[in-house]
């Protein structure tokens, strides 16, 4: 039987392309990607919508393509959010254990987490996602499940991802304008991580970097928990813009050259004195551009971006312990020699992402660009699962109370 509730759709409004992934969650939680719809994005800069009309047109095209491919009608989407307004930080919530016997219950846990979410939240911001890290009972740290422990103060450590309410609302309204509701906004970095990281990697310690066109998101996991995440609104667009400015070519040409001959590492010996012919635009003579300058500009930008990330990650205490290395996804992961550059900056093994534990067309799953959209579907599937479980839980509780 076809159950419309089990079709989950992820929508990523990216800077370079808008991507819709349609997935189906099976009864045991297995996920199948039914279709992908995509469209070049025009109204988005640095991960945020700047032109709602153009964005709406493009989203409509992408949704239509996905509907056609998956043969479903899309009613609800999980919306990926990114941009400069996102802040990711660890927050602590304290909850005193007031009960007579001082035993910690599930309610105490929920209260502590709730306090952590609200702590230090600036006006005009809202919590997009919050991920529990661990608990601290009195002075005992690193407790994963405190239920049943005895103590007087429970402190929950939560990684909270917040965003500007107005900007999330903008994206939401654009989507709603085409009669599609938004189930929940999700931080892109988290979604990508869900798609490409395995539980084993998360245990050992892994850093995911999503090199998008408008923004670069990153998420660091250790001990199975999200320890640090963030977004740097600098991406492939900046590389193209730098190239266009430095070499005096058009942005489109820069974009094309970046894909054709771009490299993340500046190899001075290999390119010294070499030139590359760029066809002239609008009837102008073809031009010679210096490959040396080309590579220098490009590698410098990528290096700076990664260094800023590495500096930010230094705040995560456990970063030095990561063993599973760095996983790259997003369009930037296709850059030649990007692994070398990442290795140089992070001194960790580098792999390109492959979407795991999802079935679907192989070419879709192997594409690093689709990681976020697929991750959004996976997020939705996990959310539905937890909901089903908790509903079951309440029913069980009620039965245990009154059913006897």
């Amino acid at each position, binding site marked *: 039987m076809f159950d419309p509730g089990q079709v989950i759709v992820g929508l990523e409004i990216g800077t370079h392309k808008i991507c819709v992934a349609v997935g189906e969650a099976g009864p045991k939680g297995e996920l199948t990607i039914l279709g992908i719809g995509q469209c070049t994005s025009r109204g988005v800069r640095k991960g945020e919508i700047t032109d709602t009309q153009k964005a709406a047109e493009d989203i409509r095209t992408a949704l239509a393509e996905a509907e056609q491919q998956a043969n479903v009608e899309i009613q609800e989407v999980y919306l990926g959010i990114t941009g*400069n307004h996102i802040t990711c930080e660890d927050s602590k919530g304290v909850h005193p254990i007031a009960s007579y016997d001082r035993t910690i219950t599930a309610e105490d846990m929920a209260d502590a987490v709730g306090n952590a979410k609200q702590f230090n939240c600036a006006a005009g911001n809202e919590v997009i996602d919050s991920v529990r890290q661990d608990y601290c009972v009195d002075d005992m740290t690193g407790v994963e499940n405190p239920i049943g422990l005895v103590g007087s103060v429970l402190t929950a450590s939560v990684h909270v991802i917040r965003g500007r309410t107005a900007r999330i609302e903008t994206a939401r309204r654009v989507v709603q304008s085409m009669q599609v509701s938004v189930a929940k906004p999700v931080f892109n970095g988290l979604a990508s991580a869900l798609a490409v990281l395995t539980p084993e990697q998360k245990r050992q310690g892994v850093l995911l970097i999503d090199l998008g066109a408008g923004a670069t998101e990153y998420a660091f996991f250790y001990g199975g928990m999200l320890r640090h995440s963030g977004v*740097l609104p600098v991406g492939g667009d900046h590389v193209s*813009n730098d190239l266009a400015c430095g070499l005096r070519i058009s942005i489109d040409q820069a974009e094309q050259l970046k894909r054709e001959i771009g490299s993340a590492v500046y190899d001075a010996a290999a390119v010294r004195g070499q030139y590359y012919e760029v066809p002239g635009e609008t009837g102008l003579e073809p031009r010679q551009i210096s490959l040396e300058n080309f590579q220098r500009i490009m590698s410098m930008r990528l290096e700076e971006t990664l260094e*800023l990330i590495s500096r930010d990650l230094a705040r995560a205490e456990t970063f030095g312990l990561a063993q599973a290395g760095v996983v790259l996804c997003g369009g930037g992961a296709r850059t030649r020699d990007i692994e070398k550059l990442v290795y140089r900056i992070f001194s960790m093994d580098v792999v390109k992402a492959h979407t795991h534990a999802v079935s679907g067309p192989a070419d879709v799953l192997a594409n690093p660009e689709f990681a976020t959209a697929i991750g959004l579907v996976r997020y939705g599937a996990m959310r539905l699962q937890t909901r089903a479980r908790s509903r079951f839980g309440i029913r069980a509780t009620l039965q245990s109370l009154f059913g006897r």
Partner: protein
Amino acid sequence: MNPDASSPFADGAPSNSPTEAQTQGPAAGFLVIGVGHSGGAIAERIAASGMSGAEVVAVDTDLTSLRLLGGVKSVAFGAKSARGGGCGNDLAMGATAAYEDEGVWKQRFAGVRLVCVITGVGGGVGGGAGPVIARLAREAGALVLGIAVLPFDYEGSLRRSNAATGLDALRSGADAVICVPNQGVAAMLDDKTPLIEMFTAANDLVAQSVVSIWRLLHRPALNPVSFADLERLLRGRHAASVFAAVEVRGATRAREALERLQKHPFLQAGHMLVEADAALVAVAGGNDLRFDEVQGIQNQFQRLCEHAQLMTGAAVDPELEGRLVVTVIATRGGTVSLPATAPTAAASASTGASATAAAAATVSAEPVSDRLAFEEGGEPESIATGTGTRIGPMFVPPAPNFNEGQKRELAQRQIKNSMRRKKAIQTLFKFDVVSVSRFAQTEPVKRNGENLDEPTYARRGIALN
């Protein structure tokens, strides 16, 4: 020797006794030279703080700016090339002006043990003449500590690029260079601070640090810090050396000193300490300096600089009654490894009385302890110190043996180089205007004061040939 009226250490400002500097030998072998406008201002602050035993001089080509300085010996140079004016941000002109009076400089530096050249490397005199003076001092046999004050960010790209060039020159001229970023001071103070206070605060910070280093070396100490220690710490690590000093009073002064050091702009909010691979921490106080204060501070630094080879020092100076001065020099990224010969904590410091007695004994024996005494006729390289002989500098350019004509030619070449650099800056400046075009309509991405929407190469000042 040039008997010209505006040669070095001849009469520059009206208030000076003209012959004093020339005739009087440098008593303690320590000479502090503030070069240029900002160097002069800092020298003025140092002189005001009463640095007994060291000679403090402000030198400049600009007579007007020298006349504004009070309370410090001021000397003009480069009368031929600068004609009593400034150098107008022209490094080559500053260098030529300094070379003009070479003989006099050299004579002046003869017999000086340590020369501290303080210079604002963004300006023409500071960035041009400062490195030359440092080089001349080193050629004369002195050990040269360069203190380069980097301009505020708002001072513009010319000064910024001048500072980069001047700093490089100073590095090759001096034995060790410490950078002092003025922008760091701005970060420490409120933005609404009056400009004059901002500059005073910046100058004071440098002055305080220089004085504290001077005291560190010359004060009879319980845990002594010798010049060899300092030198070993700094040599070859120019770019990555920072220093900071704080002076605190009151009952909770030890804790307050630590807090202030952790927020100190030069230590980059404590980052420098964490990343340092070698550090020197010296505590000085009056007779009331307590053991727990010294121990607390040093222990805290052991924790903060856990990756660093930490050298410690403690000294008692009756003048500092009621005050506590903590000086920190931290370096990173160097290749020189320190032998683990840091002075161990003096057991005698466990009781205040014996500590004071020990200090008093040292004072009465010799006001300047003999590890600092300059051995007459000895080569600077052969000065025996408490921990060993002086290590040779990592990079010692051979002393140029030029005649007058060649020197002029060298200066000319430097002028050409600087002209070429300036052209490159101009083109970059033009790029800057168009560079954010694609992102012009969006909220700029700011990190650490940089607009990341601008191309990286433009912000880093890379010229595309």
